[in-house]
């Protein structure tokens, strides 16, 4: 009898009789159920990829409809280059409109490759600086908590950047958006243009 490549689940041969189809499907379903239970038990996969968007030479990049009641917390992974040394500014968004009120407070601190601290912070800002960027590769990964719930949104993560003059090999960032509104997406804004990829993962509850 034929079997699958990885888990050796039994599947009907090409010559098997149609009348045995129900039994074959039941046997296959049982085998899969057993394998999944062995691997995961009642646990679900921890993170689910919700969206990956690639962009090239844009002044801003918006991602809509990624935050919902399905998940409470999300991970955003950004890899980007910029047209010049600058910052990536982050805004929450709902219904295709950015939240651009003066409600963001943020800060980041990094260590350069020379061992010098580099830090910046803002309060009551219209966006949140999450990453300093340059023409070399830069990355930022952060967790955002409860963006789709009508309460203050908080986020924190880490980054590595190279803006051409400051090379930060590691750093941490964080911020809050002090508005009790549910959001479904976000926008990344740059003073020049950015090229890269941003992925959003949901943490299973």
């Amino acid at each position, binding site marked *: 009898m034929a079997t699958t490549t990885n888990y050796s689940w039994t599947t009907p041969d090409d010559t098997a009789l149609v009348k045995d189809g129900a039994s074959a499907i039941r046997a296959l379903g049982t085998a899969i159920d057993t394998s999944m239970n062995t691997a995961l038990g009642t646990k679900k996969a921890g993170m689910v990829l919700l969206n990956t968007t690639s*962009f090239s030479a844009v002044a801003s990049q918006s991602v*809509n409809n990624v935050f919902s009641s399905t998940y409470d917390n999300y991970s955003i992974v950004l890899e980007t280059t910029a047209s010049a040394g600058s910052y990536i500014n982050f805004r929450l968004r709902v219904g295709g409109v950015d939240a651009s009120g003066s409600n963001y407070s943020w800060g980041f601190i990094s260590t350069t490759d020379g061992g010098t601290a580099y830090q910046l*912070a803002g309060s009551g800002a219209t966006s949140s600086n999450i990453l300093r960027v340059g023409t070399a590769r830069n990355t930022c990964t952060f967790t955002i908590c409860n963006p789709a719930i009508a309460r203050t949104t908080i986020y924190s993560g880490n980054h590595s950047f190279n803006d051409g003059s400051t090379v930060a090999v590691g750093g941490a960032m964080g911020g809050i958006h002090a508005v009790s509104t549910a959001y479904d997406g976000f926008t990344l804004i740059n003073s020049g243009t950015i090229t890269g990829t941003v992925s959003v993962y949901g943490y299973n509850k």
Partner: protein
Amino acid sequence: MATTNKSNKIMVGVDDQVVELTGFDLEAFEADRSQMRAYEAILEAEYKAKQEARENAIKKLAEVAGLTKEELASIL
């Protein structure tokens, strides 16, 4: 993939689409970015001023303590 090859134009990505800003949207976006840049410039200037003040303080302290600036900085 959101992409553009139109130089000297403001293109924004919305999910997988790229939109060229024109008219009021363009003016509003540019005004917004100008405000961001100005804010960033203020923050950077403040940070640099703090760094310079710290450097000067270390230098003065080092002179008083009879240490090099590097020796003093290593214990701060």
